[in-house]
Structure formats: structure tokens, C-alpha cells
């Protein structure tokens, strides 16, 4: 490790992107000095003389200069400009300077000539830019000019009126320049800026819109903001920055680097997909997951998670119908649009970003007994007492043995055994190749190793990206190629819960530190499995190539064509050696040969998509019209198979070819899916005087997933907006910079289902033949009437900016109808379920977002920000179709072996309702739980028909609040997030306090608070209770949680330091994530994999 760190230090002397490049001064050719003494020479000689002294070339039309008389001039140390002015005085000739050239032209009477150079904001000239002239009323004058290879333009304008020059260029914002009434020819150099400057625009992924005239609800997050809160991954930052995105804590998998989170926006409305597959790869779609768009192409959550954050230019979250309807039938759950960085300058530049991060396990939620306490609990539970004398004798002996060990100091802290502080590294090298004749390229190489809090669990991504763009006149070509190689490994230590339950008086290692096979007689030591070569690996290789063309083919028309392909191959190799404890029960001669297991999986997925969009953008006086028509086509395919082999002769044979046979009773399993789609999009927006705004979208989509009868579905949106701040009566209120009201309504679809349910499909019986012949069977009940799941969104919002304060508020309601549900049908139809559209679920809520710039000075700033969301979910009509399901669930709730609440769906309730039987607490006389029946009477008998909606696990209120400040390059940022207004079922109290298996370790609360003798008023039932605690309101607890999600510091070194190191920039940063969680519920968080705090240092430098 030392070596690694040393290497890193060398690399860390590098630095990043200069944010604001100053304009390189254009040395004005006209200011060169000359000394002349000419008498009656020809114009040509005069130019030659100037050329000799200044090196300037003169370009002129021979016919034109004939008009000029012989030149006589005598000057000393005058500028070329002065000389020419003097010579051309009284003629209708005009000159302009361009680099090393002087262009001579002639103008007509009543006109004058405006000329100059068009360049971008890095000072690079723009050949092929279109310069057009309008009068003050917006009427176009017939003067169009395209800049030369040197970026030079020259247009004639009438001298007697005010004119407007309008310059447009692919990828740049249209720039306007006013020309006042005058007779003088003038030179006007115009600089243009890229059209993707944040805050001013909304990047929808299909096209870019001016933010001011957009009626949708969206949030744009810049790369700066993103990296300010965290440097782990994009999703982690989004979670901290915008509470609209809800990522519930994964209470089982904690901070496992190899688990992808579940994400939803503005509530959930689809049912969880029943996990029937045992495939390990990530193939199944999450029905509530938003759509991810990367550089205009649909992508997966995993790709986003594994992507290097430094590549991101901006992230736009499209929330309401007006914003997301562009994505039509896939947009119901919201859309997250990610744009990667574009070339920032025209010089070669190398940026290095290095990170070192630490994942430190957070065990504060665990409250397990230590050795002494555990023995005490066992005595209380009566483990060491028995009526039989002989048994009693051996139990006493066992107790004494254990007690002796404990007194000698044995107190194994099992929790820490599989854990460590994971140390991860990230190196990112970004090379900008600058610009040569319109060709630009960026190379990006990343190595990222995340090391989890459990030993040997890690995730490594190596990725390379090449972004090449070429610009020729009004054409732009761009190609982004990205290759990612991922290797991940799950901890061979197994599930964390196996360690939690180990008794502290059991031994993990002997005196020499050697891991023991048995922790006590017949108690397998879970650590042992990790020592014998257990290996749980998976990997993937992904290739994405996206190609774009933009063509400004006619005045206000622009066409974009995109074509993207992606390919991914993934594999899983899980090996459990023959000594693994999972084979402990394989004892017969035959079974001994079956020990050792290998699971191999192979998957591949691919997608091809293409779209063509034509948009039209025109301002006519006070009217601005934007229109877009487009067509999309795509195909997604994926398939995977898995097979399991068993019977390994020893632990060292770690290859599947050493296996004796396929695992008994297994056959290869797999799945495959294909989905083809096509759609047509029309979008129109209109804005009057920047005051009254309108957006409308219509998208017609078809998918192979749906039946012939309902293949096509449309989605649409209509948004209206009013920029009140542009009204005359508001103009005087200078401090109101923005006051915008928006409202939108629209219909979008959800397609996150892998289903062929609309049509009947056949499958073959595997492993069975009939009289030597194979047979096929109908796999599903065809339902050709199956429709798309649709969501109708309503949203009203306001955006306000008053001096330092900006605020936006939204109220929304989203009705999901035609929900795709497995509807229970009588089995006399031949099947027990059919996929059908049923039900209506409503999500509603509001979102508030505020940012206040307290201070903003030359050396720094102080900003506070906060956001709050309120979410409510309600089933309007559903329970009829789910009747059989609900009844099944009730039965399972009553089952004596079920200790967790079941999911049921009833009208008027939330989809996230916690169902439990009301409890009156523990009877002080008997120590048994008393339940309250529907009629109010008390009973000891658990009856599932008494189940009530006892709580709601979906947080009603979630929010973030934070502050960021900077002074002289030193910055600080911290963000808190909180949630409240929900309940949680405290399974820890059930599993580790009440339903304890006293053979294993228990929560400390076992010792106190449990009923022991009549008269005890306690929260927990009596010891030695044989009955499993089933879902009861006793354990439904209110949940309020406050998270210190991020603290970060950075130091932007002053020029005096980095200049010495030949750098252009040097920045150091320190981050802490998931620093602390304060919760109203004491519950074990991260049962299979613990949560971790993350600390990291990063260094960025640019050369």
C-alpha cells in the first residue's frame, strides 16, 4: 500500500480545468505603426509598401481600387488604421482587418459595411457562422453572410436605420448585436458562447431549451454542485442534492458496493416485480425506476453508477409531464438526463484527478450483548436448567466451562471479524487534445476501485472514453466511445448477520491467531469459509458508442441525427469449496462426493437505437416559436444463463472443470428478452414577449411488448407559463429578477416490465420426454387487450428569484392507471394469474427548493440551501383485483412462522402500508401479548382478520439542508438530510429481543424490559415464550431520521503555488459521507452488509 501511495503522490502533482479562461487578446492588426513617404504612387504600390513594413496582406478587387487616385502620403510612426483612414477618405471604399489581412471592399450609397470576426468565448475563430441582419422590427433584411475560414464577415447594412446583427452557429447560442444609425463603417468582433451553459437552459436530452421560457418542472445540477457534496458516484450525490429522488436505505445490504439501489421519484406506483429468477446479474427492470438518459441515449442505472463523476457536465431531472413527456411511454417514473463534458478550450490540456477513500463500518445501530451479559441472559432464559438430573449435570458443566472462559477474558467481538476499513482509489486522467481545423477530441481514462467495509468485497471499474467532434461549416459530427470493464467481488466472509448472531463466548481464532474451524463444539465458525478459497466474483465488459450529427441546414432549421449501439457481456463465478460450511450436512457417502459448488453465469445484452429530430426556432418580433419533430427507433435485447456444478475433490480446484457433475436436480436456467420500439415526437412551444409561455408535446409510441390491439400508445403534455417579472408593472421592481408561474398536465407511460404477456408464448418441457418426444406448453394466458401502464401528471409551480434568494415550489398529483398487475383469475381459465391493467394509484405531494446567497464578494461567497418534499401515496381502486392476493397475504400473516408484516393492497390505503394487529401491550399477569379485536374486545389469540393499517413506511416528509461557503479558494460544504412522517416495523426488537434464539447472541434489551413474573409491566413478552411474535402494532414505531450526509472541504490553490509547478490549476478536497445517522428507532441497519461512513481525499490538477 505504501508503494501505491507513493505513486499517487507523484501523480497528484497535476491539476484540472480552468473554469474561466480569459479571452486571449487579439492583437489588432490596425494598430501596427508605419512610416511612409510616398508621392503619386499607384494604390498597388501603396499597399506593397504597407505590406513590407507591417507584414499585412491586402485583399481587394482590382476594379474597385481603380476608382482611387494616385496616392500621396507622408507620415511618420502612424498606425495603419490612421493611414488607411486618411487615404480612403472621401471614397466609398471600406477596409477591415482580419488577422494579418486587410480586406478592402466597396459599399453602395446609403449603406455602410459592418465587418469583423466571429469567435467563440475561448477566442477561437468560427468559420461558417451565419450572420443575418434584421431591422428593429425583426424583419429580416436580405443580407446574409457566412464567415470565411478566418472567421471574418462583412455585411452591408442601411445607414439610416437601427439594425440588429444575429449570429448563429451550430452548438452556440444565437448572439445578437445592435447597430445604431450612423454612416460610419464599423468593425464589430462578436464572441459567441456555447449553448449549453447551465442555468440558462434546460437540457432535455433531445434538445435544449431556454430555461426562461420552459414550462416544465425540472432541476439542473451542475458538475460543480455534484462534486461538492460527494465524490463516490453520481447517484450518491443526487440523493443528497435533490430529495425528489428517493433512495431508501437498503436495510439489508447496507453499503455494499455491489448492490444497486432502488430509486424512485415522486412516489411509487407499480408493484414490486416478484423475484422468481435466481440469476445474479442485473437483468430485471425495477418498475418504479426513473429513465436514465446519457448523452441522449437510454442507459441503465448500473452504467450511471459505474460512471466517472468527473465526466459529467450536468444532470437534469425532469419531473412533470411537460418536461418528461418527450420520453413518452417510458417516462412515467421521471427522467434523469446526464450530459457528459464537452471540450472546454482549444488548447491541449491534461487533467488528473486522484482520490483515496476509506469505507469505515458504522456499527452504532448494533446493541449486542457482551459475553457476561449473554451468559446472564441465558441463565434468565433457563438454558442451564433442566428437570432431568443427568442433563442438569451436563448443563451445569457447560455453564461453568463457558463462565470460566468468560472470566478468563474471552469476549469475542464477532461484529468486527469480517469488517475492515476499506481503502479505495480512483485515478482519472482527462486529456483534451484541443482543436485542429474543427477537429476536437477528449480522452478520458479512469481506474476506480471501491473497497467495501466487509473484507474482500470490492468493485473495480476501468474505463476509457473517447469523445471526438468535428465541425465543418454548418455541420457538427460527434462520436463518444466508452468502454467499461468491471470486476466485482462479494465478501467470502458471507453474510454479516452470521457474525452478529455469534455468541461472544465463542472463539474465532486460537492463541496464534489461526482461524478455527469450529467456534465451539459443532458450531461452525463463519470466518472459516473465508479462509478456504470461497470466491464470489462477477464482471462485465461494456461497450457504448454514440454518434451524433447536427446540421443547421436552413436558416432556422436544425437537424440532429443520433445513432447509438451498446453491448455488454457479464459473467458470474461463485465458488464454494468443499469444506464450506454450507456442505456440513452432506454426510452420506454419496453426498460427500457432492461437496463443493460452482455457479457460473453468462449474460449479454445489447441495444441499438437511433433517432432523427428536426427543430425549428424562430423569433418574429415578440413571438418566439420552437418546434421539433422526431422519430425514434430502438431494439433492446438481453439474455443470460446459469448453471451449477458440484462435487469438488479439494478446496484448491477452483475451476468449474474440476466439478464432478451438474448440481443434483438442477438444469441450466436462463432467460432472454427482446423489446423493439418506435415512436414519433412532435413538440411545440410558443412564447410571447417572454411573458406568456406554452409547451406542448405529443409522442406516439409502439412497443413489441404489447399486443396487436394496443401496440400504439400516445403520450402528451401541455404546459403553460407566465413570466410575471417581464410584465411592465413588474419592471420597476428591480429586485425581482424572476417570478414565473407554471402549470402542466400530461400523460406518460411506464415500460419497465419484461413481459410478453400480451401474446401467448410457448415453452418446452425441459428434462422430460414423452414416448421419446419433447413437448411444448402454453406459457401464459395471452391477453391481447393489454395496454400500457399510464400516468397522468398534474403540476403547478412557481419560480422566484429576488436578489440573493431563489425559490421554486411545485405541487403535483400523478394518477397511475391501467397498472400492470398479476390479476388473480379462477384456475378454471387454465391459469391462476393473468397480466392485466387494473387499478388506480395516486401519488401527490409538493416540493420546495430554496437557495439563498447570503454573501457574494470578490473573495468568496456563503450560500445556504434547502429542499423539502411531501409525498403521499393512495390506492384509489385496486383491491378487487388483488382480493385473492390479499387473502393469501392475510393467511400468511397468521402463519405461526411469519414474524414480519405482509404487504397488502387495499383501497384508500397507501401501497406502503404496514399491516399489523392492534396490540394492547403485554399482560402483566401472564406475560402474554393482548390483541385488540375489531370490536374492541381483548384476546390472546392472533387473528389476521384484525389486521389494521398500522403505519406507512413511505416517508411523508423528506428534505435536505446545507450550507456552502468559500473564501479565497478555501471552500466548505455540508448537507443534512432528514425524513419524517413514516413508520417502520422494528424487526430488531422482534428478532433479537422477543423471538430470540437464545442459542445465539441477542440484543442487550433482552436483559431488561422482558416480562419475568406476574405484576411486571413490560414492553416485551415473557421469556421462554414458544410463540413467534407476529405483526403487531407494538413494534410499529414512528420514524424520524436525521442524516449528516455530507461534509466537504476544498482548497483551490492560488496561482502563486500552482504556477511554480507548471500547472494551470491545483485543488485539494476532503469529503465525509454518511457521517452520522440519528434515528428515532433503534434498529439494526444493514443486516447482511453493514452501513459504512465514507471519507475521502481528492486532488485535482490541470497541466
Amino acid at each position, binding site marked *: 500500500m505504501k508503494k501505491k501511495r507513493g505513486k499517487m503522490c507523484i501523480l497528484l502533482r497535476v491539476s484540472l480545468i480552468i473554469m474561466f479562461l480569459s479571452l486571449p487578446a487579439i492583437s489588432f492588426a490596425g494598430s501596427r505603426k508605419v512610416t511612409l513617404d510616398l508621392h503619386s504612387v499607384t494604390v498597388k504600390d501603396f499597399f506593397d509598401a504597407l505590406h513590407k513594413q507591417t507584414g499585412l496582406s491586402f485583399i481587394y478587387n482590382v476594379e474597385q481600387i481603380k476608382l482611387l487616385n494616385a496616392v500621396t502620403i507622408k507620415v511618420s510612426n502612424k498606425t495603419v488604421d490612421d493611414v488607411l483612414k486618411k487615404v480612403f477618405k472621401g471614397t466609398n471604399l471600406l477596409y477591415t482587418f482580419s488577422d494579418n489581412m486587410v480586406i478592402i471592399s466597396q459599399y453602395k450609397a446609403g449603406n455602410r459595411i459592418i465587418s469583423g470576426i466571429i469567435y467563440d468565448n475561448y477566442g477561437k475563430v468560427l468559420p461558417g457562422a451565419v450572420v443575418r441582419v434584421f431591422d428593429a422590427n425583426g424583419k429580416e433584411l436580405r443580407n446574409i453572410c457566412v464567415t470565411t475560414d478566418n472567421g471574418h464577415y462583412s455585411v452591408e447594412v442601411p445607414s439610416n436605420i437601427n439594425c440588429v446583427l444575429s449570429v448563429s452557429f451550430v452548438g452556440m447560442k444565437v448572439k445578437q448585436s445592435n447597430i445604431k444609425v450612423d454612416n460610419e463603417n464599423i468593425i464589430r468582433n462578436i464572441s459567441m458562447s456555447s449553448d449549453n451553459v447551465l442555468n440558462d437552459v434546460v437540457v432535455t436530452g433531445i434538445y435544449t431549451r431556454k430555461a426562461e421560457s420552459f414550462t416544465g418542472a425540472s432541476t439542473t445540477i451542475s458538475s460543480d454542485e455534484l462534486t461538492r457534496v460527494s465524490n463516490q458516484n453520481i447517484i450518491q450525490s443526487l440523493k443528497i442534492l435533490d430529495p425528489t429522488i428517493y433512495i431508501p436505505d437498503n436495510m439489508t445490504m447496507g453499503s455494499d458496493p455491489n448492490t444497486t439501489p432502488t430509486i424512485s421519484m415522486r412516489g411509487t406506483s407499480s408493484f414490486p416485480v416478484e423475484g422468481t429468477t435466481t440469476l445474479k446479474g442485473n437483468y430485471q427492470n425495477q418498475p418504479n425506476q426513473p429513465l436514465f438518459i446519457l448523452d441522449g441515449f437510454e442507459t441503465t442505472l448500473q452504467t450511471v453508477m459505474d460512471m466517472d463523476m468527473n465526466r459529467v457536465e450536468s444532470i437534469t431531472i425532469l419531473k412533470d409531464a411537460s418536461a418528461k413527456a418527450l420520453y413518452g411511454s417510458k417516462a412515467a417514473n421521471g427522467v434523469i438526463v446526464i450530459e457528459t463534458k464537452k471540450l472546454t478550450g482549444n488548447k491541449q490540456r491534461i487533467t488528473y484527478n486522484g482520490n483515496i477513500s476509506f469505507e469505515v463500518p458504522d456499527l452504532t445501530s448494533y446493541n449486542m450483548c457482551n459475553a457476561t451479559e449473554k451468559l446472564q441472559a441465558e441463565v434468565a432464559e433457563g438454558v442451564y436448567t433442566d428437570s432431568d438430573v443427568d442433563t442438569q449435570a451436563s448443563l451445569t458443566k457447560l455453564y461453568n466451562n463457558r463462565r470460566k472462559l468468560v472470566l478468563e477474558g474471552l469476549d469475542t467481538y464477532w461484529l468486527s471479524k469480517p469488517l475492515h476499513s476499506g481503502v479505495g482509489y480512483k485515478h482519472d486522467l482527462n486529456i483534451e487534445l484541443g482543436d485542429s481545423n474543427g477537429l476536437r477530441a477528449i480522452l478520458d481514462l479512469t481506474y476506480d476501485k471501491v473497497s467495501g467495509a466487509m473484507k474482500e468485497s470490492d468493485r473495480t471499474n476501468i474505463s476509457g472514453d473517447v469523445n471526438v467532434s468535428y465541425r465543418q461549416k454548418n455541420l457538427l459530427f460527434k462520436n463518444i466511445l466508452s468502454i467499461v470493464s468491471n470486476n466485482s467481488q462479494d465478501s467470502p466472509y458471507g453474510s454479516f448477520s452470521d457474525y452478529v448472531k455469534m455468541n461472544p463466548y465463542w472463539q474465532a481464532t486460537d492463541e496464534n491467531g489461526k482461524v478455527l474451524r469450529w467456534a465451539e463444539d459443532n458450531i461452525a465458525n463463519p470466518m472459516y469459509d473465508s479462509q478456504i478459497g470461497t470466491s464470489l466474483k462477477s464482471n462485465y465488459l461494456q461497450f457504448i458508442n454514440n454518434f451524433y450529427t447536427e446540421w443547421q441546414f436552413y436558416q432556422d432549421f436544425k437537424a440532429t441525427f443520433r445513432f447509438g449501439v451498446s453491448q455488454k457481456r457479464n459473467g458470474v463465478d461463485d465458488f464454494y469449496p468443499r469444506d464450506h460450511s454450507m456442505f456440513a450436512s452432506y454426510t452420506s457417502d454419496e453426498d460427500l462426493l457432492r461437496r463443493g459448488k460452482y455457479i457460473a453465469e453468462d449474460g449479454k445484452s445489447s441495444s441499438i437505437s437511433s433517432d432523427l429530430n428536426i427543430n425549428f426556432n424562430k423569433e418574429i418580433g415578440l413571438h418566439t416559436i420552437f418546434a421539433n419533430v422526431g422519430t425514434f427507433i430502438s431494439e433492446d435485447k438481453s439474455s443470460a444463463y446459469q448453471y451449477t456444478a458440484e462435487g469438488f475433490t479439494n478446496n484448491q480446484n477452483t475451476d468449474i472443470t474440476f466439478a464432478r457433475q451438474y448440481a443434483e436436480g438442477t438444469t441450466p436456467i436462463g432467460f432472454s428478452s427482446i423489446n423493439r420500439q418506435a415512436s414519433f415526437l412532435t413538440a411545440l412551444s410558443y412564447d410571447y414577449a417572454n411573458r406568456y409561455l406554452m409547451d406542448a408535446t405529443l409522442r406516439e409510441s409502439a412497443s413489441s411488448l404489447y399486443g396487436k390491439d394496443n401496440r400504439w400508445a400516445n403520450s402528451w403534455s401541455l404546459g403553460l407559463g407566465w413570466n410575471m417579472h417581464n410584465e411592465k408593472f413588474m419592471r420597476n421592481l428591480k429586485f425581482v429578477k424572476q417570478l414565473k408561474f407554471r402549470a402542466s398536465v400530461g400523460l406518460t407511460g411506464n415500460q419497465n416490465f419484461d413481459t410478453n404477456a400480451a401474446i401467448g408464448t410457448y415453452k418446452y418441457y425441459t428434462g422430460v420426454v414423452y414416448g421419446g418426444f419433447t*413437448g411444448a406448453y402454453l406459457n401464459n394466458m395471452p391477453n391481447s387487450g393489454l395496454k400500457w401502464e399510464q400516468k397522468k401528471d398534474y403540476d403547478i409551480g412557481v419560480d422566484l428569484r429576488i436578489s440573493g434568494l431563489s425559490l421554486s415550489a411545485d405541487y403535483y398529483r400523478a394518477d397511475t392507471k391501467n397498472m400492470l398487475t398479476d390479476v388473480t383469475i379462477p384456475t378454471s381459465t387454465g391459469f391462476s394469474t393473468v397480466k392485466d391493467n387494473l387499478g388506480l394509484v395516486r401519488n401527490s405531494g409538493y416540493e420546495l427548493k430554496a437557495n439563498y446567497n447570503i454573501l457574494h464578494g470578490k473573495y468568496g461567497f456563503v450560500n445556504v440551501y434547502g429542499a423539502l418534499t411531501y409525498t403521499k401515496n393512495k390506492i384509489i381502486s385496486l383491491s378487487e383485483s388483488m382480493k385473492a392476493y390479499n387473502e393469501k397475504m392475510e393467511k400468511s400473516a397468521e402463519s405461526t412462522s411469519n414474524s414480519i408484516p405482509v404487504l397488502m393492497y387495499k383501497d384508500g390505503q397507501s401501497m406502503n402500508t404496514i399491516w399489523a394487529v392492534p396490540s394492547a401491550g403485554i399482560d402483566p399477569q401472564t406475560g402474554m401479548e393482548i390483541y385488540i379485536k375489531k370490536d374492541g374486545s381483548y384476546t390472546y389469540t392472533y387473528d389476521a382478520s384484525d389486521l389494521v393499517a398500522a403505519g406507512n413506511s413511505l416517508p411523508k416528509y423528506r428534505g435536505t439542508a446545507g450550507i456552502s461557503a468559500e473564501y479565497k479558494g478555501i471552500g466548505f460544504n455540508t448537507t443534512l438530510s432528514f425524513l419524517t412522517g413514516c413508520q417502520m416495523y422494528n424487526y430488531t426488537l422482534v428478532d433479537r429481543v422477543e423471538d430470540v434464539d437464545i442459542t445465539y447472541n441477542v440484543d442487550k434489551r433482552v436483559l431488561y424490559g422482558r416480562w419475568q413474573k406476574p405484576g411486571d409491566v413490560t414492553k416485551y413478552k415473557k421469556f421462554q415464550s414458544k410463540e413467534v411474535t407476529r405483526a403487531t402494532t407494538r413494534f410499529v414505531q414512528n420514524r424520524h431520521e436525521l442524516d449528516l450526509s455530507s461534509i466537504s472541504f476544498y482548497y483551490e490553490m492560488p496561482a502563486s503555488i500552482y504556477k511554480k509547478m507548471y500547472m494551470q490549476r491545483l485543488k485539494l478536497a476532503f469529503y465525509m459521507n454518511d457521517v452520522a445517522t440519528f434515528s428515532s428507532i433503534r434498529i439494526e441497519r444493514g443486516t447482511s452488509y453493514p452501513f459504512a461512513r465514507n471519507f475521502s481525499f481528492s486532488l485535482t490538477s490541470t497541466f
Partner: protein
Amino acid sequence: MKKQILALLSIVLLTSSCENWFNVTSDSETREKDQYSTDAGFQQSLTGCYIGMTDESLYGKNLSWYATELLANQFKPITQNSTTETDYELENYKFSTIEAVGVTEAIWAKAYNVIINANEELIYLNKDSANINPINYHIIKGELLAIRAYMHFDLLRLYGYGNWANRTSTLDSKYTIPYVTGVSKNVAPQLTGKETIDKILSDLDESAKQLKDYDPITGKHDASYYSEVNDDGYYKNRTIHLNYYAVKALQARVYLWRGSADDKAKALTAAEEVIAAVGNDISNSSMNTYLHFLDALSVDKTNTSLACENIFGLNVATLSNYITSYIKPNYADVDYSAMFLSPDDATSLYENSTSDIRFSKLLNQSTSNSSLGYVPLKVYQNNLSKYYAAKISMIRLPEVYYIAAECYATDTNPNLDMAMKMLNTVRQQRGLYSDLSGLTADQIEEEIKKEYRKEFISEGVIFYYYKRTGAISIPNYSGQMSDTQYVLPYPEFELQSGRQQ
């Protein structure tokens, strides 16, 4: 320029609106349309129906040697404990327990699933009839209709009411199990008993019509006639398919279930057609089709399944796995689920005859336990030769003779000699060489009942015999038998959806 763009756009539009482009399915599944694009696809789906019938919840286990046998209390009553919960509840008709509900609901669901598979194929068969080889078309259609009738008939026998002949007017007009002929998520309406049986019979009539001139088993054509459709041997081994004679035998079964005088006459006609054909020896070794009695001397441990007597039997590939804990010739006391006859029952059932091969060869007395019970070997697999292994009988020859005997004996003009002749034919084959003679009609019926019990152990036939005849008391069960015991309950969700039982 604009025109070019429009042209480009419309090309994209035209090509992508092509409906076919959307008709794709993943590799692991086949669309119906593709499944039925070849004759082989039709054959595979038909095979799929038979495989569906071999499911554990149907004839692989429940409806042959397991649930229906327990319902008939064939064996020594099972002791109730945690491993025998299901067995015990079935034997004692406790249909409302979770375990028994599991069994009855699974039978219902899987039976209708087989029916739906047959229906779906019939729909495509009728749609594409022009493109299918006529031999395939007729035989497959005939078999599918027969499968549909067979499944509905067994559902009717299980979930409907028995003793039809004695309460015709009630049962004829009472709603019974739904007869499903289409494929739809909407439930099929219930019909009256009469309408339902008529539907079964009309499907069987149509089936017989389709098969009559095409089924190789009838011997109408020689093997070369089938060379084109049979080059992979699909039409060999006809008795594992619902062949023409199986359809006839099934007709006899159905008519007898309803049991009016008219029905019995029709049952007899159908049975006689089968008996006549067997008399002419329809076995055809080149088609690997055998249908004949196994004579008493040839029965040994390699053929205890008597598969050559199956007019229709299923090939249950995994049968040996299903029976493991139930059929153990040398079961021990701890094998709580073992099915066996107590020594007293066995000897009294076979009337102390040692020559009856059904006692001497088809039962095995186990000595490794305290009860010394007799274990039926009919589905025991270990020693069977290839042809006899993994086969479950669905309709076996003796039943046709018994049906004929019953029809002769109970006809309004009984022909008792013919009735006895039918019984004697079977008895001769079983090693009972002393023929029955001079019996009254009632005595003949008593003999028939005995024959059913002796003959069909482990075949799921006796329960229906009791139910059909409305037997009030049956051996090994102390209680009285009534509809409560005989009628399996509909799945709860069917009742909630408005079904009447």
C-alpha cells in the same frame, strides 16, 4: 432541401410502422404463431398436453395411484403424524384442511391448464387446417378433442356428484364443472349436468370421427401410408396417445357414468367395438403398438405394470421419483406413508385364491415390518422391462369387459350369459380358471364390484366405481359415504367468482 428531409422521414416512418417488425419474441420462448408454423409444432404441443397430464397433481401421482386411491380407502388406514398429514386427510375426506385444499386445488388448476393447452392448439389447428398434412390434422384434432373430453370427464367425476343413474333428474339440471372450449381470461359459464355430459360426448364423437379413418391403430392402412408423417416415429406406440379405441372405451365410461338405459346401450356398443378389435388382435409390432391381455403365465416382475393392456396409458418419465416414499415393496415401520393392504384384507379380497396372479404376482408381502402388509407392484418401477416401465394406465382392457358385463347384466332385457362371459374372459387371464356360471344379475353385479377391487389397485378407478354406484359403505372406512365424502370441493376462488357446486 426540405423535401429531401421529408422524404427521409417518411422512409423511416414507413419502414418502422411495419407490424412485423414488432412481432419478436425472446429466444427462450416461441410465439404461438411460430409454434404452429410447422406440423412438428402441432405434434410437440400435443405431446405437451400429455406431459401436462403426467404432472404430479394429475395422473403422475394424484389421479392414478395416490389421491384417488386414498379416497377409495384401498389400503390399511394411515396413522396420522406430521409426515402423513395429507395422506390422512385424504383418506378421511377432510377436504377443508390446508393440505387437502392444496391437493384438490392443484388437480383442478392443472386439469384446466391441460384443457387450455388443448384448446389453444385446436384453435390454431382449425385456423391453419389447409397447411397441415391431413393425417396429422385428423389424428391431432381427434386426440386433442379426446384430451379435452377426458380431462373434463375426470373433473366431473371428482368435483361433480356421483350416483347419477339414481338421481338423473336432479343431476341433469344441476350446474356442474365449467366446460371450457376456448382460451380466455374470462371464466367460462357453468352448464347443467346434462349439457356438460353431452359436450363431453359430442367432443368424443367428433374425436372418434377424426380418428376412425386415420389412426394407425385401427389397421386400416399399412405402415407405408404413414411414412411421410411418421419418419421420426411419432405415430408409433399409439397406446400412449388417446387413440381411436381409447376414445371408444372412454365413451363407454362416460355413458355408464350417466347410466340411463339408453346410455348403457350406447356404452355397450362402444365397449363391444373395443372388445371385437382386441379379439382380432390389433397389435402391430412395426408400429410398436400392442394391445392385448397379458396371460396369467406370462406375468412376472418385469411386467407388473401390465402396460400392454393399456388401451390408453401415460408415459410418466419421472414416475419412479414420485412413488419413492409411498410404494416400497419392503417398507419398514417408519415408512409412515407406505401404501399396503393388511394381510387379512389381502387374502379376503382375493378370496384366498393363490392362483389369482393379482394376488400372487402383483402384490408383494413385506416382511421388514411388523404389519406384514401386501404392497401393490403395479406402479413399482425397479424391475420393469423397458416397455412396461414408467407407464400409468388410464383405461385398461379389463374395464371395457367389466363395463360390457355391467351393461349386459343390468339391461332391461338382461343377457346374463354374455355378462358372465365378459367376466370369465378377464378371470381366465388372471389365473382364475373356474368360470362363473348360473349367477343372478345381482350376483353378477357383486362379482363386478369384486373384480374392480381386485383388478384396479393403484389405478385410481375404484373411487369412481364407488361414487358411480353410490356405495354407502366401503371397506377400510368406518363412516358412511355420501356426497360429503365423494364430492371434492371447488377451489375457493371459483366459489367466490360465483361458481355453484
